[in-house]
C-alpha cells in the first residue's frame, strides 16, 4: 500500500511541533500518510483553506473550530477538533516604556503572579490599554479578557484588544500602536530580542491548563474518511508523546528552526520549549513550570468542558444563549473519535469526557482506562471553578 497524501495547513509557531514531528520523525509515514504541511500567512488563510477543502487538516487556535461551527466570523462551517496539539505557551509583554512605569508604581510583581502583575499594569496604564492579539477567536484574547476583566479592566471602555499578526507584534509595539501583547512563542521572545518589549506574565499564570492549539478537520471530511482520520490522529499522538520527552527538545528545536517551519534561531525555540524565558533586554531569565505541554497530564485529550468554557465566555460577552453555546462548543471537541482512534494503540483514556475546569491545585489521580492518570494543576488565577452547563 502506498502512502496517502494528506494536506495540512499550519502557522509558524513553536506549537506546530506535533505536526512537524509527525512528518519529520516518520510517525506519519508509519501510518502510511504523506503528511504535506503548508505554512500559512494568517489564521484567516488557515480557516478559509480548511473550509474550502484546499487542505484536509489544520493547526488551529483552540477556539476556532467552535467559532466556525457557531458561524462567528468567516464562512459558517462545521469543524471538529480531533485532539489538542498544545496546552499553554502564550506570553504577555509590554512596551519598555510601560514596563518602566510599572516598576515606578512600585509593583514590579513576580513574573508568575497574575494578580500583582495585573494590578501594576492597570495602575501604570494611561487611558485605554491597547493590547495586540493574533486573532479575535483565540485563547490569547480569552485569557486577556478573563484576567483583566476580573481585575476591573473591562472592554471596550478601558481595554482595546486589537488583532496584530504575530510576526508584526514587535514592530507594532515599537511604533506605539499597542501598549502590550499576548502572543505565542517565539514571537514574544523575538520582541524582547528586538529590544522593544519586556515579558510580564506567562499565559499559564492566568489559567494553568488552557488548551492552546487543536488538530482541526471539517466535520464532513471526518465522517467520510474514518480510516484517514484514525491514522492522522495516531501519527500526531505519537509525535506528541515523542515531544513529551524532555530529551527530544533539542532535536525538536533544530527541526522547527528550519526555513520550512518557524524559521527563527533554534536557541530561542529551545528556551521556549523548556519554559526558560528571557523576559527583558537585560537578560533576566525566568523558569515557567508547565509553560507549554504537548503530552503530559492528558494534554492531548479534547475535553468537552474546555470547548464549553470557550463557548460560554462568548455567550457572556455577546448575549448568545449560554446552554446552547455550550452544546455547540461541546459537539466540536470529538472525544468519541479520540477514544476510538487512540484507545487501541495504548493511549490512557480518562473515564470522563468533561470535568470541572480549574478545580485542581496539584497533580491529582483520576480514573482512566488503564487504572488512573494524573491531571492538573489547572487553576484559574482567581481560583474560580468552571462547571459546564448541564447538557
Amino acid at each position, binding site marked *: 500500500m502506498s502512502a496517502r497524501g494528506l494536506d495540512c495547513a499550519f502557522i509558524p509557531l513553536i506549537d506546530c511541533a506535533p505536526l512537524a514531528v509527525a512528518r519529520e520523525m516518520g510517525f506519519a509515514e508509519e501510518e502510511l500518510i504523506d503528511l504535506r504541511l503548508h505554512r500559512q*500567512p494568517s489564521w*484567516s488563510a488557515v480557516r*478559509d483553506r480548511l473550509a474550502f477543502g484546499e487542505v484536509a487538516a489544520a493547526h488551529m487556535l483552540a477556539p476556532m473550530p467552535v467559532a466556525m461551527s457557531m458561524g462567528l466570523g468567516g*464562512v459558517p462551517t462545521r469543524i471538529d477538533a480531533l485532539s489538542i496539539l498544545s496546552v499553554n505557551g502564550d506570553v504577555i509583554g509590554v512596551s519598555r516604556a510601560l514596563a518602566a512605569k510599572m516598576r515606578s508604581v512600585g509593583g514590579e510583581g513576580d513574573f508568575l503572579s497574575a494578580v500583582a502583575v495585573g494590578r501594576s499594569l492597570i495602575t501604570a496604564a494611561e487611558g485605554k490599554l491597547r493590547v495586540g492579539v493574533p*486573532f479575535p477567536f483565540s485563547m490569547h484574547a480569552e485569557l486577556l479578557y478573563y484576567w483583566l476583566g476580573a481585575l476591573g479592566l473591562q472592554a471596550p471602555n478601558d481595554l482595546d484588544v486589537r488583532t496584530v499578526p504575530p510576526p508584526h507584534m514587535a514592530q*507594532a509595539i515599537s*511604533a506605539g500602536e499597542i501598549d502590550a501583547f499576548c502572543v505565542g512563542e517565539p514571537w514574544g521572545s523575538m520582541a524582547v530580542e528586538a529590544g522593544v518589549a519586556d515579558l510580564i506574565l506567562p499565559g499559564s499564570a492566568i489559567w494553568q491548563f488552557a488548551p492552546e492549539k487543536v488538530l482541526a478537520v471539517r466535520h464532513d471530511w471526518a465522517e467520510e474518511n474514518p480510516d484517514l482520520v484514525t491514522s492522522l490522529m495516531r501519527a500526531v499522538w505519537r509525535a506528541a508523546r515523542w515531544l513529551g520527552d524532555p530529551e527530544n527538545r533539542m532535536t525538536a528545536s533544530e527541526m522547527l528552526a528550519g526555513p520550512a517551519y518557524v524559521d527563527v534561531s533554534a536557541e530561542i525555540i529551545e528556551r521556549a520549549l523548556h519554559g526558560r524565558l528571557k523576559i527583558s533586554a537585560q537578560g533576566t531569565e525566568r523558569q515557567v513550570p508547565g509553560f507549554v505541554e504537548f503530552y503530559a497530564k492528558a494534554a492531548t485529550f479534547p475535553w468537552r468542558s474546555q470547548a464549553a468554557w470557550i463557548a460560554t465566555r462568548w455567550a457572556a460577552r455577546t448575549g448568545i444563549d449560554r446552554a446552547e453555546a455550550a452544546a455547540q462548543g461541546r459537539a466540536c471537541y470529538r472525544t468519541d473519535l479520540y477514544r476510538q482512534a487512540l484507545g487501541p494503540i495504548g493511549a490512557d483514556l480518562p473515564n470522563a469526557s468533561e470535568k470541572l475546569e480549574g478545580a485542581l491545585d496539584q497533580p491529582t489521580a483520576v480514573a482512566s482506562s488503564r487504572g488512573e492518570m494524573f491531571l492538573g494543576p489547572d487553576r484559574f488565577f482567581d481560583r474560580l471553578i468552571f462547571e459546564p452547563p448541564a447538557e
Partner: protein
Amino acid sequence: MSSALRIAVVEEDRERALLIVDGLKDAGDYDITVVGDAAGLARRLSDLKPDVVLIDVADPNRDVLEAFALASGPLDRPVAMFVDRSDDQATKAAIEAGVSAYVVDGLRKERIKPVMDAAIARFHMYSRMRTELAATKAALAERKTIDRAKGLLMQAKGLSEEEAYALLRKTAMDQGRKVVDVATALVTAADLLR
C-alpha cells in the same frame, strides 16, 4: 442608494495596487482608496468606512481585517467576508485568483459582482505579468552566459561566432545537456583558471 461604492484596496505593492485600481475604474464608477501601509490599517479603515475591502488572500494583514469585520459596534457598519455560498464557482474563482473581499452586509449582489470580476481579472493579470517577467529575465541571463562562452571559444580557438556556437551546441548534444549548461560550465571553468 445610488452613490458610488466606496472601495478600499489593501496592497503594499504600488504597481500591483495601481493595476487593480485601473481595472476597477474600467468596471464602473467607484470611489477607490489604496491603503498601502499596514501600520494603522484598522484605524484607516474605520475612517474610510468602505463598502468593500479587497485584499490578497495570502496577505498576513487579513487577520487585522477579521477583527475589523467583527467590530460592529452600534455606529460601525457590519462587514462580512464575501463568500456567497449560493455561488460556489464565483467563490472558487476568487480564491484561485487570490482575491478576498470584505463587504458591508446587505449590499446587493449585482453591485458587488462587477467589482469582484474586475479584481479577479487584475489579480490574474498581475501574476501572469510576474511570470512573464521572470521568464524574460531568465532568458536574458541565459543569453549573456552563452555570449560569454562564445567569446571565450572565439578567443581561445580562433573560431568565428557561428563556429563557436556550433561547437557549444554539438558538445551539448553529445552530452545530452542544454547549451546554456555547457556554456555555464565553460564560463565557470574560465573564471577559475583566470
